């Protein structure tokens, strides 16, 4: 079904480690450890996983924002943009400049990190977008104002400083920055995590609408499975630096084939819960010294001897669904989430 020219991103065997030297001792944190995945044009791919599993590190590489101590140790990250193919792990800074914002854009975790606190929003737009858009003066401003209006932001925000805006407005501004050049590929790291539920829903539907209008591909990172349920076409689950399962959103929620996915889906607290949902024993591994075999085995209810020794490969377990689990055939959804016990109107 998938055609060669339909593919926008191809990640192969990607390993990216933090290599540090603390007081003479070398340390290596294997934050991204052998990830292979592909993305099609026009799709929203959700990346989930608990805190410190390597989500941000992975997408920093995708976004070509690789800075020491993070280093790409192995693998390739190839984009197939309209202006030609590029492998961001080997491209020169000049080559990366030719795709930044116009083809590849990045909404970073925490809106304040991209908005300069002492610069008016309008200046930040100039810094980011003037060159890639190739517009100046009135033409540039018209383009920006029109785009802001699309995000329900008044032209006045261009005169504001970041701290004068509410959290929701700031987040819409950062989405505006990331989308004003109509990029082909947008990477968003926890773009709604700091927002309240009402504003979150509004911002999510904006992202989704803009994505559809522009026909862009989006990598959407969040630890919040309920966001993935409503935004992503496909979901990939990262555990301890590795992709452990991926597939169409509905399948991932209703027929997970990795015990960790099943756990993530079942552990989501819901209004009406008066008891704790089943929790996993133990804690995620230290990425400076990850366990042998399957990295999930110390916490896995299905683990057998083989899991402790051999790394399970990612294999296709259902149409479009891949899992890295020796026992995927025995994985059952932990709760019937279609009919929750405490459901209320």
């Amino acid at each position, binding site marked *: 079904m998938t055609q060669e020219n339909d593919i926008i991103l191809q990640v192969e065997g990607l390993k990216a480690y933090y290599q540090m030297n603390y007081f003479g001792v070398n340390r290596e944190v294997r934050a991204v450890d052998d990830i292979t995945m592909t993305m099609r044009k026009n799709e929203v791919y959700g990346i989930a996983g608990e805190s410190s599993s390597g989500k941000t590190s992975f997408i920093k590489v995708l976004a070509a924002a690789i800075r020491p101590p993070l280093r790409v140790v192995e693998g390739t990250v190839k984009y197939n943009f309209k202006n030609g193919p590029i492998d961001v792990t080997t491209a020169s800074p000049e080559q990366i400049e030719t795709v930044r914002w116009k083809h590849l854009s990045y909404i970073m975790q925490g809106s304040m990190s991209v908005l300069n606190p002492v610069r008016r929003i309008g200046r930040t737009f100039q810094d980011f977008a003037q060159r890639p858009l190739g517009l100046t003066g009135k033409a540039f401003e018209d383009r920006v104002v029109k785009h802001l209006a699309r995000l329900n932001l008044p032209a006045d925000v261009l*005169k504001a400083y970041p701290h004068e805006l509410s959290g929701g407005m700031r987040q819409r501004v950062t989405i505006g920055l990331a989308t004003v050049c109509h990029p082909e590929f947008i990477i968003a790291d926890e773009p709604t995590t700091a927002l*309240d*539920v009402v504003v979150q829903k509004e911002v999510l539907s904006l992202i989704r609408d803009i994505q559809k209008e522009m026909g862009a591909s989006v990598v959407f990172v969040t630890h919040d499975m309920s966001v*993935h*349920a*409503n935004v992503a076409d496909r979901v990939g689950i990262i555990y301890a630096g590795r992709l452990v399962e991926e597939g169409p959103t509905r399948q991932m929620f209703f027929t997970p084939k990795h015990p960790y996915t099943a756990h993530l*889906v079942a552990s989501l607290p819901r*209004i009406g819960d008066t008891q704790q949902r089943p*929790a996993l024993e133990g*804690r995620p591994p230290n990425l400076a010294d990850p366990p042998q075999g399957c990295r999930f085995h110390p916490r896995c209810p299905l683990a057998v001897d083989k899991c402790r020794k051999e790394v399970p490969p990612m294999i296709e377990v259902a149409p479009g669904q891949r899992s890295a689990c020796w026992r995927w055939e025995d994985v059952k959804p932990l709760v019937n989430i279609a009919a929750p016990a405490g459901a209320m109107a």
Partner: protein
Amino acid sequence: MTTLLDVQNVSKRFTMGGIFGRKTIDAVMDASFSLSSENPEIFTIIGESGSGKTTLARMILGLEDPTEGDILFRGEQVDRHAGRAERLKFMSHVQPVFQNPFEAFNPLKQIERYLESTARRFLDTSDKAAIDKAMDDSLQKVGLSLKEVRGRFPHEMSGGQLQRCAIARALIPNPPLLIADEPVSMVDASLRMSIVNLLKSLRDDLKVSVIYITHDLATAYYISNRIIIMQRGRIVEMGDARTVLENPEHAYSRLLKASVLSTDDAGAGKLGTDPTMLDQANNSVGRAGELVARPDGRHVRVYA
């Protein structure tokens, strides 16, 4: 019954120049509630961003003066301008918990340094053994120990452990009241549960009262005794947490509940919000109305 905390008709107005020509912001308007000393509870404040939750918390912590109204802690006025000794005594009773465990700690600083400086300040001693004991005691309360933490940097601990350390730090002076401002907003579901379970056990086992600020309705339902829902500086609904969350009455409370994303239709891409619900909720913005009691014990703001 004695009162631990009494918030009486408190308002906070900030004055500043704004882009829309707005010169003042009423961050909190006429908020009143009280906590009793005998019945430690988890008292939850929920509401949109900018609704005044943090401002209210900062006033209770004595970091911000109310423009109007009084805040009494054990019958005494919370005073930002009190002398150093008095201020230290107050702070040993009311402690904040940092928001984001990954940002609260400097990556280049060993975790125990934070606990150590807090212990030194409140114990007013430089006796190493006494400080170590205070650190270990409070780490034990959150399921850790000084032995596990000693010498470790933030990146060597999990997010859950870091958040536990942040709570342990707040517990050093044995405060009867903790104020946790969005302690779980940035963390995943399993971590979220382990933190709220910890808050629950502080209440049940150590009799600590907790003001829990969040926008996560599920954990609010799970651990709270009482809840207040705030919209643009005003309390719009207040009462027993389960009564209110099961069947919210104020239009904003209903919008809040309806906006919680569900996984029942995973993959269907449902993100719409009922526009009449939005209109009804927005309709109450800027109107004073009046908080009235209902037969089930809750208070709801109604408009003439």
